[in-house]
């Protein structure tokens, strides 16, 4: 079973919507409560003061994700560097997917983006796992300049998902700005699944693509992590 990391800025009151908790409940979930400190503050100093409060909040959150059934746990980290903490904990827990929590009600339409150089096979098998036998429909989305190759990829992926018993439709955006097209397509969906892409100049300037999508679409985004050997 794929493990999903749900990082939450716990002491800033960041929380998860009921829709996302229900969506992830059947999966293995690690709630990563983190608190980013300015460099003036040693992490240990913050721990002494906030550990009890943060732990109490995390226990409640883990219960929402199914801690009672043994599918969810939590970790609490005090850090100066958020990204470094995410990567370390994701590696340590073997989480292939991380969630950017957003606001949503019950999830019954999932937008799955295959745009760019992402691990389509791993995204597909994660979506199959995630939906299981629930009544959640899938829209496969792809933005590309190459219409024919794009259609083929969407078609092939749709067929395998269909064979698993999922409701699938496809949406192809040709010659549109990929990110804007994805955010537009997200409008009539409850959550987004996408792949993490190799860092580039764009991510350096504008920030991580997944976070920009999350900001643009408001809803939760599940990001299938890039592995070293994906290259």
């Amino acid at each position: 079973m794929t493990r999903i990391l749900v990082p939450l800025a716990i002491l800033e009151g960041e929380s998860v919507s009921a829709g996302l908790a229900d969506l992830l409940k059947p999966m293995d979930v690690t709630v990563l409560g983190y608190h980013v400190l300015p460099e003036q503050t040693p992490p240990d100093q913050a721990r002494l003061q906030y550990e009890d409060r943060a732990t109490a909040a995390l226990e409640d959150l883990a219960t929402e994700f199914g801690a009672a059934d043994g599918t969810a746990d939590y970790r609490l980290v005090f850090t100066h560097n958020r990204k470094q903490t995410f990567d370390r904990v994701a590696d340590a827990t073997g989480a292939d997917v991380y969630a950017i929590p957003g606001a949503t009600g019950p999830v019954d339409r999932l937008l799955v983006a295959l745009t760019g150089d992402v691990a389509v096979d791993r995204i597909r098998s994660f979506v199959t796992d995630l939906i299981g036998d629930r009544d959640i429909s899938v829209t496969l989305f792809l933005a590309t300049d190459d219409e024919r190759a794009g259609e083929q990829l969407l078609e092939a992926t749709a067929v395998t998902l269909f064979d698993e018993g999922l409701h699938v439709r496809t949406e192809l955006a040709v010659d549109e700005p990929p990110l804007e097209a994805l955010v537009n397509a997200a409008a009539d969906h409850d959550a987004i699944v996408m792949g993490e892409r190799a860092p580039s100049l764009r991510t350096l300037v504008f920030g991580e693509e997944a976070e920009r999508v999350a900001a643009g679409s408001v809803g939760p985004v599940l990001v299938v992590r890039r592995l070293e050997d994906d290259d």
Partner: protein
Amino acid sequence: MGTGSPGGGTNVEGESPRIEPTVETDEATLTDDAELERTLGLTGGLAIGIGTMIGAGIFVFPGLAAEQAGPAASASFAIGAVVALLVALPASELATAMPKSGGGYYFISRGLGTLAGTVVGLSLWFGLVFATAFYLVGFGFYAVDTLAELGIAVGEELVIPIALLFGAGFTVLNVTGTENAAKLQNGIVALLLSILVVFLTYGGLDAAGVVGEPSVPEQFAPAGIFPVFTTAALVFTSYLGFAQVATVAGEMKNPGRNLPLAMVGSVLVVGVLYVVTIFVATSGLGSETLGDLGETAMVEVGRHYLGPVGAVAIVFGGLLATMSSANASVLSTSRSIYAVSRDALLPQEASRINLRYGTPHVALGMAGGPILVLTATGKVELLAEVASFLHLVMYGLICVALIALRRDEPEWYDPDFRVPGYPVVPALGAVCSFALILFMDWTSQLIGVGIMILTTVWYFYYARDVDLKGKL
């Protein structure tokens, strides 16, 4: 909170040291319920060490040192470097054995017990306060010179007001600022090193007679040997930064490797730069002229070798360097206050942080307030010597603590780095640290001893029943 520590005793208010069992990995510290990410790499460690040190030695001391010791001021800086190195090596071993926030204070309280720990911990707080005030006054001189270069002559009476203004500014910024200044600090250090390397390469070639007009060498130690040592005691303030690396030991990635490299490396880098700078400066202008120019003598050295461009580069470098030293020291001060308050040697209130900015406002205030008072005195040499005095006591005791721990190694003592040349190196380190104190001005010695007596009294009043020895 304050309960659950394995022994440790209580202070006069009934608080216990907050000590919990931890597991250290290269990437994080794991406590029972939480993890503390290690986020500083080797570059960050070197930037803290070099960034703290470089401001004083290059930009403030050359004039003052040359006045006292002549061209032999180079030798004074070399003596300082040797002493610093003799301490940096034992400190590295202890830091890899105990990679925790608190640095020198932590090693001494665990190795030698609570009395030595209290004296060093509180003295370090004051030592850093004196050092920061010294950097700020240096900054004030450079600020006035910058205005002069820009054609605004304001005179030296503005040095102290400017220093006070910026001292208050740094404190407020550190309480409210959540921007990541570490990257900026790395950039500043890199920029400074580049300016210095260009300047010193050109100046060095000139001074050695390869380019430019040949100059007549003056007598190396015009005032004899004794001033070389008193000057070494004065300029030792230029080497205080390496131990500040140990105050962030708990946040350093792969501490077994990075801590020794950052501490020893930063001493070597600044030591070489200092010696070369003094050589270039005294060769260029002659030590008498340098002495007359005082705190910002380096500006004229820059002008001598590279014309107006050189002067502007040095003025700019001096501003950045003294600023980065002052800011890094404010941060170290707040960390050292946290370390003693965690161990119940100060009220635990002192380590409160606020959720709004996530900064330790109480400790920063306890750093900033005294810094401003001392800055107002404007006595550069006194501030520098008292700072060195209080640090040297800690350095000597670090070496003693190492020897004490090695003679009867506790089970938990398992450093990744072991000091070469044990027991000679730590023994020499201790002797040299204490000896350097003897060459200081008696006023500085008196103030230093006074502060240590006060901290001892504080121990007997407040923390007599706290037990820290061997309590990890």
